[in-house]
């Protein structure tokens, strides 16, 4: 994947670029909105990572300009601002996702991966599979190795979400957003307890573990 990071804070920018490179991505890093706009219009990228507060041209204007010129590259906004209003204005300007500082690298990486492969979420399969697990979305039945597993509606939704994004990390906040439509970080480990209940049903009784914990990031079902 080819990524462009537009971030004026040196430490943060270098950290993002290094982390993404370590994951095997090709990363360009620029410091100002002007440079970012030039870079984004002259080369093709898979995802743009744009800070909201940038010198010369701010992040919102930059993305609006790109969208006005027909550039549809997915954009992840980074910001120290955090209110819902700011999030909405960012999304309205043409941003695709939003990450509030301070953030963990795992969160950023998972969201970038999700943006780069966005259309995958729209797959029209009716039976999802991972290893010996089978999920029938129409009959609303789950079985593993031929053994029927009874799931509560919410557990079903979480499993479906992870299966549809096989191989990709889903962070706690991404799950909160998609499953419960919640856009703040609860203090309690609410997502962890939901996952552990799901695991108790689909992983515990079996030999191999399907839902993997990615340290410092989230959860993933291996492809």
């Amino acid at each position, binding site marked *: 994947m080819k990524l462009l990071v537009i971030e004026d804070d040196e*430490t943060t920018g270098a950290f993002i670029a290094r982390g993404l490179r370590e994951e095997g991505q090709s990363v360009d890093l620029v410091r100002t909105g002007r440079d970012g706009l030039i870079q984004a219009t002259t080369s093709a990228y898979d995802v743009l990572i744009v800070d909201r507060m940038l010198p010369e041209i701010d992040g919102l204007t930059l993305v609006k300009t790109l969208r006005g010129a027909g550039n549809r590259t997915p954009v992840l906004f980074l910001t120290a601002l955090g209110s*819902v209003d700011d999030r909405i204005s960012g999304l309205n300007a043409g941003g695709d996702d939003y990450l509030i500082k*301070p953030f963990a690298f795992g969160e950023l990486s998972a969201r970038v991966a999700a943006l780069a492969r966005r259309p995958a979420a729209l797959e029209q399969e009716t039976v999802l599979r991972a290893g010996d697990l089978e999920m029938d979305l129409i009959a609303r039945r789950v079985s593993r190795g031929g053994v029927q597993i009874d799931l509560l509606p919410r557990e079903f939704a979480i499993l479906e979400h992870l299966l549809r994004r096989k191989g990709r990390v889903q962070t706690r906040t991404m799950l909160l957003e998609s499953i419960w439509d919640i856009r*703040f970080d609860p*203090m*309690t480990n609410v997502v962890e*307890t939901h996952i552990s*209940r799901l695991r108790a049903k689909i992983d515990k009784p079996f030999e191999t573990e399907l839902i993997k914990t990615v340290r410092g990031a989230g959860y993933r079902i291996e492809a």
Partner: protein
Amino acid sequence: MSERLAPLLRSMPLRLALGLVVLFSVISLISLAASFLVTQRSFEQAMRADLTQRMAGFRAAPNATAVAALVKAEARVTDPERMVLSYLAPNRSHFGNAAIARDDEGYHIVSLDQDSPDLKGRYLALTAVLHGGQLTIARSRSEIEALRGVFLNILGLSLVPTILIALSGGLYLAHRGARNVNAIAGTLDRLTNGDLQARVGMVEGWSGDLADIADRIDQMARAQEASVAAIRQVSSDIAHDLKTPIQRVSVHLQDLSDSSDLPTDARRHLESAQKELEAIGSVFGSLLQIAQIESGSPKSGFAPVDLAELLRTCADLYGPAAAETGHDVTTEISPDVPLVSGDRNLLMQLLANLVENAMRHTPDGTQIRLSLAFRDGSAVLGVSDTGPGIPSAETDNVLQRLYRLDQSRGTPGSGLGLNFVSVVARLHDAALHLDDNAPGLRVSLTFPPAQTS
């Protein structure tokens, strides 16, 4: 009606008007009574003079027979209701249109008509002895009594318009005065309630002194708004400027943790430093969010919110985590509670704060109940627990920013949770109450009655 009149009755212009009405009435009454007495007296004098003159006419008759003839002739054409003539001749025979009788109470005029023997009304009488007989001439006082009625009419005719005009003028002035007072009082109320954008403004038709007061209030409000905005801007700037360094420290710690050759001890310190930093970041996030809600225009994000769905989602989200800490989350949702206008995300966060508070500050086995009711046209959201509760003296304090109860110092938490709840409640114009759940704490949020639109 009486509720609407009560404040008007206390107003100055109406009291003045009522006072004037009483004064006018007393003066009119006295002057009319005086002129009535004068008129009555001169009427009586004229009547007496008339009677004396008539008596003199009879006196001119040469003998009793002539008097009797005169009386007989005149009585025939005289209505006894108006004037009575009675002559008792020396030979005890009677002439006239009525008779004079005497009993223990005095003299009476008695009608000669057998059907209605008594003559009503009072008379002014003159009696004289003429040629051995007794002649009585009496005139009815009914004209004088009619005069009293005339005067009463005059009194009524002159007083009623006076009272009406004075009262309606007073009411009008009182009403206008009340409107002016309300305009100023309403603005002051809004300012007191934290709406610093409230202004009295220029009201058409206000006199110089009222406009002056309005202007001064507006000046005061502008100054207050500016200083509060400045304070908010500073705190928001501080939060922004601190977030970037927090991010940098987090980056450095991450780099450190990525290097594999760390002694176990150092790694332990590193992990607790990362945890602390995360907590600092979240406190700053909350402070920034509260500052933004208080200063910005957050109502722009308002949309109809289904509180029942919010409650169910919250119970669903926290159920498993609460079960792990030995808490039981239940919901009690009345059907048909209308949607409220609000910010779903902020309201969800408010609910989450209350549930997390209950989980954190109550022991194992505590019930946490989320309820939604519809009372007096208002949606009422409640989060109650059966834990130790909050001392009633502390209920105001716990809504303060960064305030923590002594009993909860040992537990995790930022001291921002309930402050956030009160800020979000205020944003939604919802009344926030902390009550004793006997045992435990009951937090309830009463939304403003749904507008019919």
